[in-house]
Every structure is written in C-alpha cells, then in structure tokens.
C-alpha cells in the first residue's frame, strides 16, 4: 500500500501539495505511489526559480530507469525555490517523497485552484487503494 499523508492535497497525475510555514507557499513533489510506479529515479529536471507556471503545465521531468516522464504543476504559481539536493541524490524521490524528495516550492497565484485538488481519500480511491 502507498503512503498517502492525510494533511496533503493531490492530483490525478500523482503530484502532491504540502503547506509550508509561509502563507500561500507550498511544496510540490510526486507521491509515494508515483515513485513506486516509476522505479529508481536517476535524474530530476527542475525549472529555474522565478519562473511562473500555470496549472497542469509541465514544470520539469523525472527520469527513472530510462523512462522520462513529464511533471505537471498542481496549481498556478511562481517557483520560489527548487530542491537542489536532487541533483546529487535523485533517489530521495524514492526514499522520502514527502520529505527530502520535494521538488518545488511554489507561491500560489490562483488560490481557487486548490479546490480542484484531491483530498487523501479521493486520491486513495483514484489509485485503487481507497
């Protein structure tokens, strides 16, 4: 069974959104289910800080055992920071997807889009584990 923390929001494309201590700023990453499906992550391509991204826009790619997959932003916002630690240790996406494996820190520009995300129960049903 995949880990689905109860305090996060999710997308059907298997990204999550996690609140930070700063109002309107969230961490974005891929879920435990997604990392399990991908396999061993060997490279993560992330955008430059300062870039504006639209909801469901591709913000980067993740490569796992020769499969390159697009990463989709759950919401619209500005990239405040990226996890530079993934350059040296991309396997953090596998070992700690909700902690050290975070990918983006995003400042939300359209708060209403949060209503379109899935809660943990909905996401669990989406992946057939609910």
């Amino acid at each position, binding site marked *: 069974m995949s880990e689905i923390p109860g305090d996060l929001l999710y997308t059907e494309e298997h990204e999550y959104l996690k609140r930070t201590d700063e109002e309107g700023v969230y961490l974005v990453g891929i879920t435990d289910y997604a990392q399990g499906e991908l396999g061993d992550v*060997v490279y993560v*391509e992330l955008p430059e800080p300062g870039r504006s991204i639209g909801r469901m826009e591709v913000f980067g790619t993740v490569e796992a055992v020769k*499969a*390159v997959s697009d990463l989709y932003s759950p919401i619209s916002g500005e990239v405040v920071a990226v996890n530079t630690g993934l350059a040296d240790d991309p396997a953090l996406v596998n070992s700690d997807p909700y902690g050290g494996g975070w990918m983006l820190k995003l400042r939300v520009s359209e708060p209403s889009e949060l209503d379109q995300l899935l809660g943990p129960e909905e996401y669990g049903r989406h992946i057939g584990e609910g």
Partner: protein
Amino acid sequence: MSIDQTLLESVQAGAPPALRLYRWAEPCLSLGRNQPARDRFRDAARLAASIVRRPTGGLAVYHDRELTYAVAVPVGWLGGPRATYHAINRSWIDALRRLGVAAGPARSSQPTARAAPAPHPASPDPTCFAAAAPGEVMVRGRKLIGSAQRCERHAILQHGSLPLEAAQQTMVRRLAGADAVAGASLAAIALAEAAGRVVPMPELIDAVVAGFTATLGIRLAPAVLSPPERLRAAALADQRFGTSAWTWRR
C-alpha cells in the same frame, strides 16, 4: 527522433497506437534526453557519425547496422509505463524466439556478463549496452535490445535498438579505449551472433510483426505519416532535434 516524437503526439491526440521500424541512413550516435554530453561526446565526431539527442531517457546508443523500433501507445493501453515496457519487451522476445534466438528478460538487478553500473545519465560508462535494466531483452546474459521511454500525460513512446552486427564496440573503442571494447563485447550481443547466422531483413520484420501481434493480441496494418504529421516532424527537426541547443543541452 522527430518522427518518433510526432507519433507520440499523434497518439496523445487520439490516433491509434503505432509501431515503427526503421534504419539509419548513416551511423548516428543518439544520446539520452538527460545524459551529460558536452565534455564526453564532443569528440564523437571522430566516429564520422551524426549525433542526436533522444526525447527518451537512458544512455548513448550507436546506430549502425541495426534495426530501430518505436512504439507509441496510449497510457493504460498496455498499462502504465513499466507494464508497457515489459509488454513491448515480451513482444520482442516472442519475435526473437521465432528466429531461433533463446532470448529472455533481464531479471531484477541482474548484471550483464560484465559487472556494470546501473543505467544512469551520469554513469562513468556512458553507453546503453553496458548494463541492463530489469525486463530488457537478453541472450545468454548479454543485452540484445536497448530501449528507453518518454511518458507524456496520455501517451507513452518507447523506442530502442537491435544491433544486427557488433557495431557498439566501434563507439566504445573510440570513446573509451581498447580495454573497454573487451568489456563491451561481453555486455552486449548482436543478432547475428545470437542467432548464429545473418538474419535477412524481411525475415526479421516478419518475426517482429508476428511477435507483437501474438503477444499483444493485436492486428497491425501498414500506415504512413499523414500530411500534418509530416509537417509536424519537419518542424520538430527544425526547432528541436536538429538543433545544437537541444543536442548539447547538457
């Protein structure tokens, strides 16, 4: 690369799944999408080969005296990315067995006949055929087909290389020296050696068609790119895959 990407985009837009088989007009080195190349492969011009960067992951492949394949399917048609990977590789194994080749899938964490690092864009050995991922097509512990994927929201592209003769050693020798050639000879195998004969191309194509149709339970019909697809492929070549900015992005 442009045509393969076009097929992916077409399937993403609702076109039927596609299988493409092709060869290269001249020897060509293809790099994985995220493979660091600026320091390692600039000298590859000594191979008198052209160089392209794939949209898919993985490491360098030297395309010469080989058959290249591309499969574009909707997400879920064969399952997710890993299920699709295994289904396509099983199709190849079926095809090869029809040629008398005792092919099988690499087991989880199986090393090739030469101990090698896991496939990684920054691996010290920059070549695809140096190591095998689980499920890849092997013969007697040596890698026969190298494959890689690109996954977009609604479609998956998987393409790969089946060396017909032992051409990978040429690239390895030029890049890494004679010692590495011996290792490459152990890690990879070409079809002629695996089959114990030179397989005529028509026979190979027939076996591939039979393997895919039987394994996937499908029927294949010949097709050509539509006029919009030809335009899209030309645009992709002009704007992305044919540009230095893309090829040398890392």
